[in-house]
């Protein structure tokens, strides 16, 4: 495997990690506030469709992005309504949201575009274009560093850079602001937050809505940057891989980035090579597909450092019993 191949695999790692990272951070806000969210997949899918649909009709990718975020926020609001206001089962609500998105996207796509549940292909201003960094062309001739700069760092869409900037942003918000402290507290001990006179319901809704915005960006990235248009079930389990990455990272932002890059790398390798031959031992492509899930189970089992979720996760808060 030569240097250029490695650069290309890493480049596609970054592209494939981006939706995982956005969804993973989305889940991080929600779960840190004590709301389990297995509906990341559904929110991403809904956003992917509406961003592609609006971008296709209006020709503007920014309008598409806004529509994607708005549709994801609707589902996030539904999740909040079910799990915060009506104190329902958060996991069941997440399952319902995933199915709602899987069904509604195809139903509406068929009604609007009549192309068998997909949107028309996007081109021009309806897609996020790659951003070339200054002097990328001139510097690409430099050995080793040139290709890294020109291929690996430069030439991604703005959402990729946004996703990776969201990592320190999330860290700062969670660990260096009052809002972040309260958000983490509400996921560990909501009664204490309530006693301090801060609204548990308000904080949890805020977290669920931030989660909705990030899932919306993740979905829009899938349909308008990574690919050119929406196809049925295009999230293909990414929401669950993001969930796996979140557990893998033990609910911490910086670790979430490394986990998403790792799972993105696995996807990139599986995409580029089918079966990998390691000196006689052939690793079938299915192993690469299953590896994120297997790793997560191993981490969850606590064999490699224990993953302990926020203490109040999954439990509705009832004021005064």
């Amino acid at each position, binding site marked *: 495997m030569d240097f250029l191949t490695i650069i290309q695999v890493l480049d596609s790692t970054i592209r494939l990690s981006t939706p995982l990272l956005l969804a993973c951070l989305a889940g991080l806000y929600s779960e840190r506030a004590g709301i*389990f969210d*297995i509906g990341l997949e559904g929110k991403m899918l809904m956003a992917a469709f509406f961003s592609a649909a609006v971008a296709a009709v209006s020709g503007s990718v920014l309008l598409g992005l806004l529509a994607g975020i708005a549709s994801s926020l609707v589902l996030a609001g*539904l999740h909040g*309504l*079910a*799990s915060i206001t*009506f*104190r*329902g*089962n*958060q*996991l*069941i*609500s997440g*399952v*319902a*949201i*995933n*199915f*709602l998105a*899987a*069904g*509604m996207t*195809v*139903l*509406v796509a*068929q*009604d609007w575009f009549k192309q068998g*549940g997909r949107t028309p292909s996007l081109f021009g201003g309806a897609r996020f274009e790659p951003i070339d960094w200054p002097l990328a062309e001139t510097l690409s001739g430099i050995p080793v560093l040139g290709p890294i700069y020109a291929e690996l760092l430069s030439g991604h869409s703005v959402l990729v850079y946004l996703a990776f900037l969201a990592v320190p942003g999330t860290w700062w918000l969670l660990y260096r602001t009052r809002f972040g402290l309260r958000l983490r507290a509400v996921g560990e001990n909501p009664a204490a937050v309530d006693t301090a006179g801060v609204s548990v319901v308000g904080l949890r809704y805020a977290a669920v809505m931030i989660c909705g915005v990030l899932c919306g960006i993740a979905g829009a990235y899938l349909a308008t940057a990574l690919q050119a248009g929406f196809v049925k079930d295009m999230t293909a*389990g990414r929401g*669950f891989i993001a*969930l*796996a990455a979140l*557990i893998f990272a033990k609910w911490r932002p910086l670790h979430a980035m490394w986990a998403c890059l790792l799972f993105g790398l696995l996807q990139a390798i599986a995409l580029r090579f089918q079966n990998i031959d390691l000196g006689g031992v052939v690793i*079938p492509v*299915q*192993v690469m*597909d*299953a590896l994120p*899930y*297997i790793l*997560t*189970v191993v981490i*969850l*089992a*606590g064999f490699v450092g224990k*993953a302990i*979720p926020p203490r109040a996760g999954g439990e509705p808060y009832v004021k005064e019993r």
Partner: protein
Amino acid sequence: MDKMPKWADVVLIPLISLILAAILSALVILGIGEDPVAAVNMMVSGALGSTYGWGYTLYYATNFMFTGLAVAVAFHARLFNIGGEGQAMLGGLGVAMICLYIPWPHWTMALLAACAASMLFGAVWAAIPAYLQARRGSHIVITTIMFNFIAAALLNYMLVNVMRPDGSMDPASERFPAAVHLPTLHELLAPIGISFSKAAPANVSLLVAVLACVVVWALIWRTRLGYEIRAYGHSESGALYAGISPFKITMVAMLISGALAGLMATNNVMGEAERLVLNSTEGAGFIGIAVALMGRSHPFGVFLAAILFGFLYQGGAELALWTNIPRELIVVIQALVILFTGALDNMVRMPLEKVFLALRKGKA
């Protein structure tokens, strides 16, 4: 003191939730420019208007009975088994091995062996998440989701690299021998003079599913083990105090749950496809969640809800065939049912409780 009479909890709340889901589904159909009344008529005539329609409705219902019971048993122990899909896939693998590699003289013996194998494979696939939950405290919902994906990858590997016949491009196993063909309802009912559609896939495993409903009922409400499962589900600390081992209940409930999900393979793999194909479960494992919620985790409720969803599936297929409404409408209806009977349960329950309290005060 209960806030509501039992019948309200068992019948009224699911009924109201179902009506809410139906109203929203009708709005969705209106939204995509179709006529909901015509759609319902077409679904009824397509799914229940002929023995062909009934044959498909009952075929789907058989799948959903198995997966619904699987989810329901776990619910009784307050465990959420979302891994029915993966367990049913593994069950299919077990059935395929039994049918392909052992020459059976008669389908009855093959069916018994296939039941045993599918239950074993499904239970094993549920055992690992159960053990991790009981001993290591890993959240069973997350691990069972992960095991669904691992099962899909495993099945993919087995079909592409191991079980695919030489020269075939299709990732599927060989066709099962004719000796293990399960009699369809047509073949079962013809000797007693009832004519039933030849083409419909409903088969003898429907009886296995009904039997499973009865056995699960007896298990949950008529045995000591069932009592322990329910006690553990109501209060873990109470159960612990009564000397019930949480480890044992978690393991046993999940093993039964996985075995039931695995049993589904006798219907879809052995009864219908008669070979193992990719994605043979078609999401039935997830529909089990809706069925169990709708049926209030009671085997009889699961039985009724499974037939309702069987009707929706066959009716939805008819709609997709004759109108512009895609099959995904069923997925939306399924989502709404899960939403209203599961997640938004309190939205219906809270106002109703107030109504019943007011009524009682009026009487006193």
